[in-house]
């Protein structure tokens, strides 16, 4: 790469030119002195000054010297290289000298503009010039690099600027990708009613352009998409785009809107500035482009996420809130057949996670589920369906018909398998029937639930105990699901337990729930234990006529594992709760129990379950006479020869693979309490589903764990995020509805009373729709083209473009920041954007301007400069507010006939036709008051001010304070950069101004280019501006992009790395560091080899090379060191 032409004593001839730059440099730096000084530097043969070296005469001066004096190096000391380095390089090139033998020294931005003292400035200039001269001697001639420019263009932002730029480029034959993050293009302009000054309808002039952009063959429109990453450089950008899933197939959707009509989730719409409502499946406005609907779904709601059975409460709650009870019931049925049972007995983990619980209380999901079952079962005594249309040939045996077995049977049968339910007892239901008494779960409800399964044509065998797996295998079953539960009572192992009248809780409850006659009249009953089985036993005993029922628990009330509502109910019904007591032996007479000896306990240190260990208090024994003692201290698995071939845990539950529920015997699966130990119903149901999925996988030949059983695709949404969305008001939660205690005596009537439809709807309406779309499926049922697919995933695309145009627009100033104007405190204070939606005939009020309480405003105040021209907020003028305030004044007067007052500081009506518009308004009788409003408040001094909003303002033209009472206040809010402008600009490596708007390359001469080559900006993301200006900028940006693309190539700085081969030791450190794979290893020479074409000049290899064998053109080590030398010698 050597191109230097040294002559004579080896030191090249250097010419130095110091610029006055008018007074910019010369007023502080004594340029003649610097030139004199330069003459004395090594290598310098000529040193001149000039008023403007960059001018034609200045450039000619240099060229003349090159030719006449044979200069070999040129140094110009003037402004920043960013401005004129290219200029001077061209100058010397035209005179026949290699442009890279020129060096520029900055004595303006780096010296005269920042130094006050002329002596200091001159000294600094001398040092800088010396540095430059020292360095330039070691410059070498280099060749410029050219790279091809990818002709494709990316436009970010689909507002009027983005659309215009895209259309211009597409019309010229270039391929454009237009990315917009909202579901529709159109940007802010789509929200407006009319545009100033012509009062053209915004939609009328915008929608044709939107349509053109969508249908142009050269434009690829990506809506509901965001740019995530940009790599590369001018001419060669690699962009990653995230196309969010609409969950609607765009090619099939016709935009008919039937889905939106039935959607069960509704909330305030951001497009309508929260004045109107929209559904979870929506189109922002009628003329949206593309004309497709979008389902908004954010994460999974906490209730759905936490349900072990994968039921989706947010779906059926949403349907219930709309009164669609039958659809809601059917939705539950998709996840479980045991709707009625769960509605009574589920412990409802969903309610614990419900976000509404952070407000006035959780949505009563379980009671809603019960309501739905009751409603449906009342009108549908039998299921509406029968066996599945196609039956598979494989047989599955399910041992145990509790919730796990029943659920597995349901799902497997629906898939078509031949299913047999084998149950040891006389009826199906397992613990649901055996353990839970009628007053909690009436058996006719359970029976109806079971018919949901048997209606599918499942073979049922009751009174059938299975003794071995071989039995079932011999019958030809291809798979077995063991759901045998844990229905043996654990006994205490104390003296007297074998006496008559002492029994386990399951023995007692089974008798009760099989409705066998038990008469406890006058008897004294003791129940030992603190779980639900104990409570159930106690409350059942009371109903059977017991004179006295005592419940003994060895710890305190706080540690009781039973549901708190059960404990409270038992107490209310008259069960005597005896805490911190433990039975030590049963005392009998004639083989029958007569009394129980117990001891009092105290709580000691926590044991390994975290609960405090109960310790007997010595000497505190007492005797309690009893006729019946029920031991309810826990449940255990029943031992059975059936389990002999299986691996068990040390608690004697069945050991299974957690994912698939497969046991050590490949065709045998297990689930429910038999695997988990005594647990809750929903866990068993979840296992039933999971086992059905695994068995189906195995029998269909796919292999058991090929597709995992995944209940939720998206991560759970955080509650704080949901609450931060706002839009809710505190309500009252449902009161408990229970049978009064007197009515419960002696019978097993259901204690909890049902909800009325009004109560159900009212409670369901409290749901916050955490994840927005509730997956209720209603939209799917009405979509004719079948365009809705909940499983559509987000897509990641990568495209390559040569240039990028950024047109990301603006957001409005947040009026809550100015408390004196009352926005948010007084309901009738609006922002201009809200008024724009009100006036818009397709807005939330169809163009009627009404106050929040429905009255028509008679006096309206429009306050200019809200948040603009204000040192406390934004100092700049937002340019468009005066005009839009006038426009709104005119439209409001037209619509309402009200008296309108505009409060302004200055009237800025600079554009074409704008002044005329202002005059027209004044002639229309709008009142103009020149003064910045101090306060909007409701305190009244005179009777006319009562009930009004009073605007206090200094009327500067009259010279007095005024109070103007109005009905409605409109705040003309200013324009600000988008909320995430900072992230966008980091991604694109753009600069921004102090206010956050993207920075243009030059405020006067380059308003749409940026300091990042190849990236252009257009529209309000650069500065507040109106539509004609945004369109003009868009055209300008498009033409700049076209200029680059049509030239076809870009010239890059030849600042590539190169190798000094003789020094290279072949260590290969550089090779791994190169992000562009520009370095490889030469096996023969045993050194690195550099590919100049691929090198981008990042400098990593230069810094890393341990031998300093790698160096970089334009920034060689010796050049830099010589520069330092130059400064230090002369400082």
């Amino acid at each position: 790469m050597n191109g230097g032409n040294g002559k004579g004593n080896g030191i090249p001839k250097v010419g130095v030119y110091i610029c006055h730059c008018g007074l910019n440099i010369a007023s502080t730096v004594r340029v003649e002195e610097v030139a004199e000084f330069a003459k004395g530097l090594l290598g310098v043969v000529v040193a001149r000054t000039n008023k403007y070296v960059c001018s034609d005469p200045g450039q000619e001066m240099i060229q003349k010297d090159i030719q006449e004096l044979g200069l070999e190096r040129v140094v110009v000391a003037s402004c920043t290289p960013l401005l004129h380095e290219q200029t001077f390089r061209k100058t010397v090139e035209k005179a026949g000298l290699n442009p890279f033998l020129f060096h520029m020294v900055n004595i303006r931005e780096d010296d005269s503009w920042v130094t006050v003292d002329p002596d200091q400035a001159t000294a600094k200039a001398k040092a800088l010039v010396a540095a430059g001269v020292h360095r330039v001697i070691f410059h070498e001639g280099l060749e410029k690099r050219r790279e091809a420019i990818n002709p494709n263009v990316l436009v970010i932002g689909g507002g009027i600027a983005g659309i215009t730029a895209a259309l211009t480029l597409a019309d010229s034959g270039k391929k454009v990708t237009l990315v917009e993050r909202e579901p529709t293009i159109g940007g802010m302009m789509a929200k407006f009613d009319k545009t100033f000054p012509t009062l053209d309808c915004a939609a009328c002039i915008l929608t044709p352009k939107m349509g053109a952009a969508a249908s142009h063959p050269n434009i690829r429109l990506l809506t509901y998409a965001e740019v995530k990453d940009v790599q590369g450089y001018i001419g060669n950008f690699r962009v990653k785009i995230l196309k969010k899933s609409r969950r609607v197939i765009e090619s099939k959707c016709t935009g008919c809107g039937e889905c939106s009509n039935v959607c069960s989730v509704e909330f305030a719409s951001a497009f309508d500035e929260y004045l109107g409502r929209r559904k979870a499946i929506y189109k922002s406005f009628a003329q949206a482009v593309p004309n497709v609907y979008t389902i908004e779904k954010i994460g999974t709601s906490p209730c759905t996420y936490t349900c072990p059975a994968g039921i989706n409460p947010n779906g059926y709650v949403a349907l219930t809130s709309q009164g669609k009870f039958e659809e809601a019931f059917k939705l539950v049925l998709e996840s479980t057949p045991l709707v009625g049972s769960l509605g009574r007995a589920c412990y409802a983990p969903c309610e614990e996670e419900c976000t509404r619980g952070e407000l006035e209380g959780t949505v009563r999901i379980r009671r809603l589920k019960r309501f739905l079952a009751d409603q449906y079962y009342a009108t549908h005594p039998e299921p509406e369906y029968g066996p599945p249309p196609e039956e598979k040939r494989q047989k599955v045996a399910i041992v145990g018909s509790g919730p796990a077995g029943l659920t597995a049977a349901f799902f497997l049968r629906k898939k078509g398998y031949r299913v047999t339910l084998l149950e040891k007892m006389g009826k199906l239901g397992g613990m649901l029937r055996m353990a839970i008494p009628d007053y909690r779960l009436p058996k006719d409800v359970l029976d109806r639930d079971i018919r949901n399964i048997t209606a599918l044509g499942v073979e049922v065998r009751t009174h059938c105990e299975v003794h071995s797996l071989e039995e079932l295998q011999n019958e030809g079953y291809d798979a077995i699901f063991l759901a045998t539960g844990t229905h043996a009572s654990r006994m205490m192992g104390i003296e007297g337990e074998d006496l008559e009248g002492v029994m386990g809780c399951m023995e007692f409850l089974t008798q009760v729930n099989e409705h066998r006659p038990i008469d406890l009249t006058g008897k004294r009953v003791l129940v030992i234990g603190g779980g639900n089985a104990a409570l159930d036993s106690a409350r059942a005993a009371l109903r059977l006529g017991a004179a006295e029922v005592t419940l003994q628990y060895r710890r305190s009330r706080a540690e009781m594992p039973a549901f708190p509502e059960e404990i409270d109910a038992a107490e209310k019904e008259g069960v005597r709760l005896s805490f911190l007591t433990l039975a030590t032996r049963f005392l009998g007479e004639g083989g029958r129990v007569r009394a129980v000896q117990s001891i009092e306990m105290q709580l000691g240190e926590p044991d390994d379950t975290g609960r405090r260990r109960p310790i007997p208090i010595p000497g505190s024994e007492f005797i309690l006479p009893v006729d019946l003692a029920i031991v309810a201290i826990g449940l255990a698995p029943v031992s059975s020869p059936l389990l002999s071939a299986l691996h068990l845990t040390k608690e004697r539950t069945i050991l299974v693979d957690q994912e698939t529920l497969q046991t050590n015997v490949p065709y045998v699966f297990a689930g429910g309490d038999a695997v988990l130990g005594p647990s809750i119903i929903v866990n068993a149901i979840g296992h039933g589903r999971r086992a059905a999925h695994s068995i189906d996988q195995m029998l269909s030949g796919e292999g058991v764990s090929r597709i995992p059983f995944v209940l939720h695709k998206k991560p759970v949404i955080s509650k704080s995020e949901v609450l931060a969305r706002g839009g809710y008001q505190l309500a009252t939660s449902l009161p408990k509805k229970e049978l009064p205690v007197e009515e419960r005596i002696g019978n097993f009537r259901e204690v909890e009373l049902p909800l009325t439809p009004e109560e159900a709807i009212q409670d369901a309406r409290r749901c916050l729709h955490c994840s927005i779309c509730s997956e209720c499926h209603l939209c799917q049922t009405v979509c004719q083209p079948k365009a809705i697919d909940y499983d559509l995933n987000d897509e990641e695309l990568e495209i390559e473009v040569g240039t990028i145009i950024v047109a990301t627009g603006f957001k409005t100033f947040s009026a809550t920041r100015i408390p004196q104007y009352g926005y948010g405190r007084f309901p009738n204070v609006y922002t201009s954007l809200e008024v724009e939606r009100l006036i818009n005939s397709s807005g939330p009020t169809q163009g009627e301007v009404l106050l929040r309480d429905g009255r028509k405003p008679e006096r309206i105040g429009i306050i200019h400069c809200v948040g603009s021209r204000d040192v406390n907020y934004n100092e700049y003028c937002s340019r468009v507010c005066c005009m839009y305030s006038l426009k709104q004044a005119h439209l409001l007067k037209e619509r309402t006939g009200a008296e309108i007052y505009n409060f302004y500081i200055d009237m800025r009506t600079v554009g074409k036709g704008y002044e005329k518009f202002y005059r027209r308004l004044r002639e229309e009788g709008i009142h103009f008051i020149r003064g910045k409003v101090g306060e909007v408040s409701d305190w009244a001094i005179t009777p006319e001010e009562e009930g009004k909003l009073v605007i206090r303002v200094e009327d500067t033209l009259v010279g007095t304070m005024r109070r103007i009472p109005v009905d409605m206040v409109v705040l003309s809010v200013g324009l600000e950069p988008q909320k995430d402008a900072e992230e966008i600009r980091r991604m694109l490596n753009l600069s921004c101004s102090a206010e956050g708007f993207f920075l243009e390359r030059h405020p006067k001469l380059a308003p749409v280019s940026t300091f990042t080559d190849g990236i252009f900006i257009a529209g309000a993301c650069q500065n507040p501006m109106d539509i004609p200006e945004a369109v003009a900028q868009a055209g300008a940006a498009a033409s700049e992009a076209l200029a680059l693309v049509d030239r076809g190539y870009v010239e890059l700085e030849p600042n590539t790395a190169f190798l000094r081969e003789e020094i290279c030791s072949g260590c290969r450190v550089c090779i791994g560091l190169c992000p562009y794979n520009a370095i490889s290893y030469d096996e023969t020479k045993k050194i690195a080899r550099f590919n100049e074409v691929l090198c981008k000049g990042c400098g990593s290899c230069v810094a890393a090379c341990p031998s300093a064998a790698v160096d970089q053109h334009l920034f060689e080590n010796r050049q830099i060191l010589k520069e330092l030398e130059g400064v230090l010698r002369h400082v």
Partner: protein
Amino acid sequence: MKFAYYPGCSLKGTSKAYEASMQAVFRRLGIDLLEIPDWNCCGATVYMSVDEAQALLMASRNIALAQRMGLDIVTPCSACYLNLLKVTKEIQENSPLGQRICAALEKSGLGIAAPKLPAVKHPLQVLTDDYGVSKIVTQVTRGLKEFLLVPYYGCLLVRPLNHRDHPFFPTKMDFLLKSIGADVVPDYSLKTKCCGGTLTGTVEEIGLRLNYLLLKEARRKGGNAIATVCPLCQFNLEMYQKKIIQKYREPVSMPIYYFTQLVGLSFGIGEGELGLRRTPKVQERPSAAGR
């Protein structure tokens, strides 16, 4: 809990009732107040208008004295509160004025150790933030249902330097009064509108008008008593009612309390101890329909 107590001139003079009621309440709550020995005037609003630097210099002496006591400062008067906060700010920011203040204090043998300056608190803050309303309510023995209170904060407490409450619509006193069982007007828009300060003495016409507006709106919103936090606000609102009625011919009188008097009343402390003996009795609350 212990604090260095900086009364300021008003609390020993026209606002003796504020001091009495505050001390009674704090005593009941077990909060100790040790008056700063040899404290001096803070400059209030008067001297601050004449020579701000000198005023702050004067005020700083009290901070130095409190620092020697090793305690944070409680000061009930809003003007004193603001001035002491301003001094603290200047010293902490090491501004030219702050440096002058430190040098002057050093010179008079009262050098101040800059980073760990005593915090300056208002008793309202101490009650709601430091002591805690949940503990205060345990001392409440009597309801205050005869009042519909208008919460008036004045301006100095919340602007420009108090960041513990909203500068235009603060709510700490509302919260405290509601917790002790009083009803508070929820939408009094003039919570922090100026009472005129010393203007009632210097340009009476303006002072009268400002207080007239406050009283009139209080009445319009249905209130029958105003709760204040600042001695000058209380003085202005109470002492000029007769002149205001004469000038504007509207019945705008009502008793003006210090919030500490109301808290004391709820605790069952006697009127004598709370300086309430000469306060006029409150009028009957207007019915809801009348509002």
